[in-house]
């Protein structure tokens, strides 16, 4: 039963990172590699806030805020000037930004090269549903993720901002000429997606008691796998793909053992899905 809790928590973290990534891909058609850097910045901000306040929620807020600011800075500083260049240009810029952020965070005057511990307590009681027991942090992660994913989904389906995103996703120029304020809509997208990545960074850091400058790499390449699996741009698809990947990973680690390292499984799943359903689990055929 530990396993089920494990699967749900892993799913949650993957979903938080992937949802931001997939909506950003939707509006901008950029593979936002620097999302990994945004994630790492969130962890760093959480650590600073935790060290000065000791509070869980304040640290979470700091992580979301710092990541949101970092995401916005990347949009305005990097992607916006490159909006009309071929899509490989912002991709390269994004890779560069990620590497720079990671290297900077490793400097001793920032986060430094060592992993640091983040033993924050959310105060949410550890629930038990019959056989299924969750620790406090597991419950916190699951709760926050459900709120966030449902929130983003409603935002997209029910608000003018969501309508604008959908319009931009279909055709950016057409949307602009129909009176959608591109800049505001895309910036809002970065703001929200990055804040979610910051939240994920903080929550995973507490769950594993590890804050690291290089934390963004592994989790965000898995998020890319998820984004593709779920159908590029689809929020429910990303959530479902997070569940699929987390389940495969956790069960394979538990029962098959490490024939393959856990992280390689993500790519196996990706290859399998690309061969069988190149449009992703939920994506529509032909874009």
């Amino acid at each position, binding site marked *: 039963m530990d396993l089920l809790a494990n699967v749900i928590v892993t799913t949650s973290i993957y979903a938080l990172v992937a949802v931001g990534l997939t909506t950003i891909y939707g509006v901008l058609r950029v593979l936002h590699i620097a999302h*990994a850097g945004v994630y790492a910045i969130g962890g760093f901000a959480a650590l600073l806030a935790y060290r000065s306040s000791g509070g869980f929620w304040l640290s979470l807020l700091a992580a979301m805020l710092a990541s949101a600011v970092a995401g916005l800075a990347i949009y305005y500083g990097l992607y916006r000037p490159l909006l009309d260049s071929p899509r*490989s240009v912002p991709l390269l810029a994004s890779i560069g930004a990620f590497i720079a952020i990671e290297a900077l965070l490793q400097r001793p005057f920032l986060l*430094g090269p*060592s992993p640091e*511990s983040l033993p924050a307590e959310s105060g949410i009681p550890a629930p038990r549903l019959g056989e299924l027991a969750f620790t406090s942090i597991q419950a916190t992660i699951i709760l926050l993720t459900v709120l966030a994913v449902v929130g983003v989904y409603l935002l997209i389906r029910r608000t003018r901002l969501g309508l604008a995103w959908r319009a931009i996703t279909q055709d950016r120029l057409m949307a602009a000429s129909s009176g959608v304020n591109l800049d505001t809509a895309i910036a809002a997208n970065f703001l929200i997606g990055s804040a979610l990545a910051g939240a994920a960074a903080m929550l995973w850091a507490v769950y594993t008691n590890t804050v690291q400058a290089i934390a963004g*790499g592994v989790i965000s390449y898995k998020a890319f796998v998820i984004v593709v699996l779920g159908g590029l741009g689809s929020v429910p698809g990303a959530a479902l793909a997070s569940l699929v990947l987390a389940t495969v990973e956790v069960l394979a680690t538990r029962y098959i053992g490490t024939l393959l390292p856990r992280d390689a499984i993500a790519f196996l799943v990706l290859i399998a899905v690309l061969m069988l359903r190149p449009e992703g689990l939920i994506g529509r055929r032909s874009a």
Partner: protein
Amino acid sequence: MRGSARLLTILAAALLVVAGCGGGATPAPTSPPAKATEASKPAAASPAAGSPVASPAAAASPAAKPDASPATASPVASPAAAAPPAAKPATGEPITVGFFSPTTGPMAADGLNARNGAELAADRVNLSGGVNGRPLRLAIYDDAGDPAQAANLARRLVQEDRALAVVSGAYSPPTTAAAPIFQQASIPLLSAYAVSPRITAAGEFVFRAGPAAAIEGAAAAIFTKENLPNSPKRVSIVAADLDPTIQLAEAFKAQAPKEGLEVVSEDKFALQENDFRPLLGRVRSANSDVVYSPAFFANAANILTQAKELGITTPFVFASSADSYKVFELARDNAAEGAYLVTDYDRSNRPVVQAFIADFKARFGNDPDIVAAGSYDAVLATAEAMRRASSLEGRAIREAIAQLKNLEDLVTGPVEEVSAERDFVRALALQVGRNGQWTSFATVPWSRITR
């Protein structure tokens, strides 16, 4: 399907890049073998060097005398662990010794500690007369944990810095990549703590100060059988999926039957893994008496914390790769109390060790771990060999290293001699986590391990 083929190509490329960054070999393209050559100040400028440590063994030792030759060296040959009161700081033309460690990338924490250890040692050497009056100058490079960068910097050390000898404060893969280059140039290389057998296989110019994987893994099996409570029989192995840690696991497995141990399960995890809960569930169902885990310190802290959370009470034995105070810092709820660690860095009450810990802490602000201690010792041993060498030519230094004997004052434990396989012969230690630090628990002599 407009443009989807192109998109997938770009995506695949992007994933490769990110995967490359995320995986073991990290980029640090921002720092091409960043040359940070730095003359270790011969003067008493550094705070640690400013406080000569009273070490009875060292004070009585004649090692700092320039004329101590390998053949006639006294049984207690101390490689300048502390400056005898009379010794003068070295002046004269500096002698260049190369040093490299991963100060960027995923191993950067270890790399910085290793470099700090080496610098502390160089200052020690220089305060106590240097090498026959000439100061040691470290030419320091960053290998970023990347074998390709290590090979590049090795060529630079040979061609540009004209290093007379080199100390590796790096892990096995970079050291393995650099070793043949020094071998070919007839420049002695002393690897501080890397365990891979492939390192010394490069040839007669390549030495190892720490234990090889075969030795350390075998010692772990011996300790497990002889020193752990309740005489365990069933062992689970959980290893980080990296060359040195896998080698340790293999060595443990090879020794286990000789000690009457049965390896009942064997698992690997990625270096950067930090959620071990599914893997620990698997270990629990193997129903073993003890877990041997060659892992890195962050892995060890996570494993211990999460095992405690899952209510697993099986004792864990870690390898020298996890030998760091950071295990206690990162583990929650005192989960590292009672964990075991096999290492050559025995934190005993030997005065040299206590002095080294105090000096290191005063200068760098943290406890020295195995990589710091190992690099410190490797620099001291190299300097000692240079003092004893008939000349400062590569082959003469090589011979002097091969003939080193009875280095009593190395902080990673006294070295009896250098074996035919060019490994330093020494006892290994079992440490246990107590009151937030690694403390001495047991030792096993080299002769017992190689029996």
